[in-house]
């Protein structure tokens, strides 16, 4: 399953470190999520969506 976390993060001009600090995880965790090597919990998905100002659908839903 792909996701668009990187796309929206770059759109918001945030680095992996910025996003990681904003939601209280490590930079490595963000990298793993963006490269689809780790499936985050719903709680973490919501935190990412809030920081990026988008919905869960925008980030994780595949058409």
């Amino acid at each position: 399953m792909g996701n668009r976390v990187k796309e929206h993060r770059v759109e918001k001009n945030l680095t992996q470190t910025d996003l990681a600090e904003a939601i209280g995880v490590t930079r490595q965790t963000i990298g793993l999520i963006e490269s689809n090597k780790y499936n985050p919990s719903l709680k973490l998905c919501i935190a990412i969506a809030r920081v990026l100002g988008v919905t869960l659908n925008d980030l994780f839903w595949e058409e």
Partner: protein
Amino acid sequence: MKESWVTMFLPNDEYKERRMLYFIAEAFVLFIGFLGVVFLLNRFSGIFNTESSYILLSVIAILSLYVWIRYIVSGMEYANVVEKSEYKMELRKLIGSTSKFAVLFAGVAIALKVTGVVVYSWVDLLAMTLLTNGLLLVAQFISLQRSFRKNRELS
């Protein structure tokens, strides 16, 4: 929501927490297997009857080492080290903290020897300090290397 007391021993980062739980669960499965093997060996040969305390100690050591080695090899300890400058800074910190530990370790070992709590020679003490700290330094270096490589791949 944290629902288990074991969470106080786990990292705050979600990915690290989940991986650590896997490692601990793997160690538990190994423990059950090990107990089964010991049970069978004891039943057919009685080899461990007189040395049960050594077995207990070795089980504790093996399980602790298993979780520790898996953690080091996973490359998640230094999760924020991506740039070469950060790598060099962490390497300096690592050498500093290992040196501090070596001094502390030697201090405790000398205190135990001087007070007569434990009996061993000065050569033993020196060898023990060098070996322990050498292993710690190598393990931390491998951990840093693997973390750095993994983080670079994910950036």
